[in-house]
């Protein structure tokens, strides 16, 4: 008896090892090319040693700074000016200016001006450092500047994560909302979520009848018609977006048709804005909704519907109580897929969104490519990741991931 048990246990272990070996290439691939980059991004979102490396001594001596005096004491100023002079001679003061400008907007220009003036000056001959700085520019009279340097002591900082949702540290060290005119990220985040909800709703409205029709056909006909759903899927994404631009532009197909039919007399403004983005993304993400729905509808046992009818339920009741709940697995799979893809989408808003239809990903691109603020871009990416995980958890609570059917 024990011999048999051991034999079976050994067989089980062997099967598990075989399974692991089969999966290990994929696991390795995911770990190296998916998990590791994400971890690196999350680290970059909170770790920024640049200022610390550029002015290490200043950052140490300014620890006792009290913002109520606005200026640190003369000793600190001397250390700062000495280090700034070294940077200026090496032409790296511009790097410091960029970094500090990201912490306090406007600080950069002050640093650059001061760096230019201090480059060839004899620091020991300056009688009063505070007066000297004020003579370069009155803008030095700003406690936020000195606070930014003080905060740079720790290379780990939440500033970028806070900035990504329009928050910041004030002089007391508390977290507060940024002032009205500087708030952009949170608004865009909300707009992105709003657009994703719209797109999900529109794809459901269009995909449900389509999938129902396809599911009711015999398999051979359905497979043939399915090609019409998949064909756009296989066409280049850029081609699809550009065709929408051609359709929606000022003297494009839609406007010309409406003018011809005398429905309107001036062309509508339907391209390079939020409207165009939502329409185009609905078109692009439609197959992601049709396929799971089709799968769950196909797999449904039609006898339930017939039983409901034979028990006396009218068509509406049958639909809402029997048919719809049975398609919920496919519907929720499609909805989750479309929603999560939408919030991270970049290409469509970049090409057809204009200024009005920008999503969070376009701002991430701006910080990656144009302003070179990779720390802020990483923070924004991290926040998007957290939102996606939270939504996934909520979905799991409500519907259950095991109930997902991807067709």
């Amino acid at each position: 008896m024990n011999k048999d048990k051991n034999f079976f246990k050994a067989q089980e272990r062997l099967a598990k090892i075989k399974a692991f070996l089969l999966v290990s290439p994929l696991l390795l691939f995911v770990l190296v090319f998916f998990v590791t980059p994400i971890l690196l991004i999350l680290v970059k979102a909170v770790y920024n040693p640049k200022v610390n490396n550029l002015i290490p001594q200043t950052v140490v001596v300014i620890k006792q700074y009290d913002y109520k005096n606005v200026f640190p004491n003369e000793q600190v100023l001397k250390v700062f000016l000495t280090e700034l002079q070294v940077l200026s001679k090496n032409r790296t003061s511009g790097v410091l200016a960029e970094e500090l400008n990201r912490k306090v907007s406007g600080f950069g220009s002050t640093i650059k001006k001061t760096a230019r003036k201090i480059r060839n000056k004899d620091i020991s001959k300056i009688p009063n450092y505070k007066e000297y700085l004020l003579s370069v520019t009155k803008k030095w009279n700003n406690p936020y500047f000195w606070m930014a340097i003080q905060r740079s002591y720790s290379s780990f900082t939440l500033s970028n994560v806070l900035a990504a949702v329009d928050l910041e540290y004030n002089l007391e060290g508390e977290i507060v909302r940024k002032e009205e005119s500087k708030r952009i990220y949170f608004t865009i985040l909300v707009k992105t979520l709003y657009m994703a909800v719209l797109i999900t709703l529109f794809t459901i409205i269009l995909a449900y009848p389509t999938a129902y029709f396809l599911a009711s056909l015999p398999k051979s006909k359905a497979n043939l018609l399915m090609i019409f759903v998949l064909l756009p899927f296989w066409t280049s994404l850029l081609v699809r977006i550009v065709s929408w631009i051609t359709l929606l532009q000022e003297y494009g197909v839609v406007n010309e048709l409406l003018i011809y039919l005398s429905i309107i007399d001036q062309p509508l403004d339907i391209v390079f804005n939020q409207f165009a983005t939502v329409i185009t993304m609905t078109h692009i993400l439609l197959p992601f909704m049709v396929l799971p729905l089709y799968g769950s509808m196909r797999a449904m046992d039609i006898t339930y519907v017939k039983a409901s009818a034979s028990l006396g339920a009218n068509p509406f009741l049958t639909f809402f109580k029997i048919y719809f709940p049975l398609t919920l697995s496919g519907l929720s799979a499609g909805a989750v897929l479309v929603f999560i893809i939408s919030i991270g989408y970049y290409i469509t808003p970049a090409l057809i969104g204009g200024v009005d239809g920008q999503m969070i990903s376009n701002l991430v691109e701006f910080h990656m490519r144009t302003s070179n603020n990779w720390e802020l871009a990483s923070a924004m990416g991290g926040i998007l990741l957290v939102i996606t995980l939270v939504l996934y958890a909520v979905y799991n609570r409500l519907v259950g991931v095991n109930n997902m059917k991807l067709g």
Partner: protein
Amino acid sequence: MKKIILGMSIVAATLSAESLTVISWGGDYGKAQVKHMIDPFMAKTGTKVLFDDYKGGTAEIKAQVDSKNVKWDVVDIEYIDLEKACSENMLERIDTSFLPKGENGMAANKDFYPAALASECAIGNIYWATVFAYSKNHIGANKPTTISDFFDLKKFPGKRAMRKRAQINLEWALIADGVAKNKVYDVLETEEGQKRAFKKLDTIKKNIIWFDSWSQAPQLLNDGSAIMAQSANGRMTEFEIVWDAQAFDLDGWAIVKGSKNVELAKEFIAFATSTKALSGMQDVNYGPTRASSGTYIPKEKLSKLPSAHLDEGFKVSGGFWSDYSTELNEKYNSWLLK
């Protein structure tokens, strides 16, 4: 064994023909550079030149320098961005001793106009201007003549096309609002001045089409999507240019810091800024930066060059934008998204 190594190194030497990556702005300007500078240089030295476009700005250069992965060797950079790039250590510092004499026999530092050699990071190659233009076919009865007309929606209803950045747009807004051309940068330095510029831009905000590349401007004028478009004067040769408030500036050749072909890059720049090569820039209505190139320019061409309209415009300040570019472009981006 020795024979094999010798053979292999000879083969390797011949296979690795020298190659240089030169980046410029494309469009008609790029074509003129190919005709007068790139092709003759390739023919003369046998070097392979990879000539590509970029959209301006310093971000791509910075990304390469920061990640220590420098692919570009020579870049044609606007002087409005040059001081920023130079002070942030993105460009190699080059002296002027390698530049050839002019065809008139003058030494380089006498032949070049002073502004072209003023920066330690670039050699100026053209004088050009940012102007706005309109198409005769789409403009209607009234013709714009001043920068205020650009901001006047009542007299000139329709869309305007502008480049998607703060530079030049803020200066134009202030000048159209009544600021004297020589005081623009003083006003723009202050908070109130910046607010004033954005407020003026607000008056036409809904009617602006934003583009990334100068070559999009003529397209937008051609199909009537915009009735007035901002662009470099050389791109607008088929349209009517309005020279009022023209933003006068230079372009120059710079070498990216960390480029692996600095000597070859200098050779190219020396060739490209020689008298004859530089005079080819008149094809796109840009003024060469050497006095000796003037002998190749016919009298009728001179009135089309920006230098003939100096008093109607203002000189762009690279120093101002070196300090304030980041801050103002941040403000510009939040303004854009509201």
